[in-house]
């Protein structure tokens, strides 16, 4: 009870912090937000009028109060750049990022964990080095460059996958967007051609993001596994005559999963911030691109909206990983059923 109250407080504080930081950024950026609205050619009086409408002439504290006040009422206003309510924009852009990030993390975790386990089991062996190098390469390549190269190869030269964008123009309007997640929408509509098109647009960027999170996840898996494999209960398990497979997957990994969920959750959060660079290269209309573009034009309403979403995602995933932590590790469940003897 009291814990949950403290937790609520924490969240409130975090949000206020996000608000403050965003506001601060919006004011320190040497861009006149009004200029973003009226453009280069605007006569002075138009610019001034807009500045007043945006309350840019008020003293800063007053501006901040207004800003927070509106935000607290959930009114993030309209985006200057898209003329839409910020929430509408986010409802359009976030699913795009969500789709990409989710596929990315599935690939990343789905391959990263087994690879990490493999490396740990074959510690110092060829497999270990192979996985290590592969992962470190993942850490080390500039993604925008790799992305473009991948496009050239798989899209332009080989024609295995579809190019930039989320779906072929042919289907752009045939499928109506319910969730905004193309794979779901197309599947729900039963438009399998559209589904295939969406999928083949998704594969490349998702694989790329997947690879990058794979790099991190496999490394962490490895070190967690090494840690577990050194434990006494592994010796016990061997003494019981269990097969290595069972010892590794059921005993060691099962324990390693406990810290691993946090790692995975966090890299998922990382992907959900939206990778500006990937989204640029693949013309993917996602959150990262939205926030960056808004930021560069001092469209602070949009930036705030985006930031709040990212912040929420971050907090949410932290909660989720805590919850999973409890599920996975009985020691964290505070049930004292035990007795001595």
């Amino acid at each position, binding site marked *: 009870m009291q814990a949950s109250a403290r937790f609520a407080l924490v969240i409130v504080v975090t949000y206020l912090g996000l608000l403050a930081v965003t506001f601060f950024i919006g004011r320190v950026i040497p861009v006149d937000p009004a200029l973003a609205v009226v453009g280069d050619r605007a006569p002075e009086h138009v610019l001034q009028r807009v500045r007043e409408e945006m309350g840019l002439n008020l003293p800063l504290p007053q501006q901040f109060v207004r800003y927070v006040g509106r935000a607290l009422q959930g009114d993030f206003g309209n985006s200057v750049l898209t003329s839409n309510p910020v929430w509408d924009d986010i409802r359009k852009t976030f699913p795009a990022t969500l789709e990409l990030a989710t596929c990315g993390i599935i690939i990343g975790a789905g391959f990263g964990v087994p690879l990490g386990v493999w490396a740990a089991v074959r510690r110092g062996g060829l497999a270990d080095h192979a996985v290590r190098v592969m992962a470190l390469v993942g850490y080390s390549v500039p993604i925008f460059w790799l992305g473009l190269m991948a496009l050239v190869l798989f899209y332009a030269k080989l024609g295995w996958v579809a190019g930039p964008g989320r779906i072929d123009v042919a289907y752009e309007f045939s499928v109506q967007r319910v969730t905004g997640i193309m794979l779901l929408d197309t599947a729900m509509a039963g438009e399998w051609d559209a589904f295939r098109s969406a999928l083949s647009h998704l594969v490349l960027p998702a694989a790329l993001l997947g690879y990058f999170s794979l790099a991190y996840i496999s490394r962490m898996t490895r070190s967690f596994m090494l840690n577990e494999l050194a434990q006494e209960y592994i010796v016990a398990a061997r003494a019981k005559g269990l097969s290595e497979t069972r010892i590794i997957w059921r005993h060691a990994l099962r324990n390693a999963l406990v810290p691993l969920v946090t790692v995975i959750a966090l890299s998922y959060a990382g992907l959900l911030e939206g990778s500006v660079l990937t989204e640029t290269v693949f013309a993917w209309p996602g959150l990262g691109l939205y926030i960056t573009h808004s930021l560069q034009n001092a469209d602070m309403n949009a930036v705030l909206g985006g930031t709040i979403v990212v912040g929420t995602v971050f907090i949410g995933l932290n909660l989720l990983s805590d919850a999973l932590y409890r599920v996975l590790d009985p020691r964290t469940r505070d049930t*004292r059923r035990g007795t001595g003897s």
Partner: protein
Amino acid sequence: MSNPARLPLLSVQDLRVAYPAREGGMTEVVRGVSFTLGRERLGIVGESGSGKSQTGRAIVGLTAPGGVVSAAQLRFGDVDLLRCAPEQRQALRGGRIAMVLQDPKYSLNPVMAIGAQIAETLQAHQPCRAAQARRQVLEALAAVGIEDPARVMKLYPHEVSGGMGQRAMIAMMLIASPELLIADEPTSALDVTVQLQVLGILDRLVAERGMGLIFISHDLRLVSSFCDRVLVMYAGRVVEEIAATELHRAQHPYTQGLLNCLPQLGASRHPLPTLDRKPEWAL
């Protein structure tokens, strides 16, 4: 002494265990240990680092990666442990040779219910239905003197006391009814009162099931009171082998040293005897 008519349960000739040294080359931690074991209680005593645990693990086949085990002979009943395939070694482990480890706090898997861990041993050696397994687990827990097995089964290691944990450990190791049990300091992590209970249980089960037991400990008194025969190890060698009842006649100064360190009721405690070590013993 075991009955010579039957071939010994375990015979070890010139067992050596070596590990790669930080400074290149190999260092031997067990240096030519030999003994044979029937269906009896053998104690191995020595300070930490004397190689007693390594001897035990080498027999079970749990020498840590990097370690090299060699011996003139290492046979368990009719099986030549040196030459048999890893699979067979694995089948033996927990099946015919079991090992109880020191501290249940670490030797039980923290995220698995105790019952599941015990059942696992059984399943690994004599596949059987879940219900069947459950029944056997309950029996095993009861056998180690746990009143309400049904409840304990569902508990996780962190939820039980050390004593109960160690009993569970024993149950886990005995459920596949092995012929040889190696107990590596099974009680030194427990508080004294509990120690005796656990030893009692161990004693009973070994007797009932006619198992061979290798009891590894640093506590000479404990061993002498509990075993038929005692190997005294120092620096990787057996310095003395002696029947528990003959201990007071021990020849080797090291053994005597160990004995003198044991406080005797009535006798004055001053000056406190100290254990002296002579390098030549290690030769």
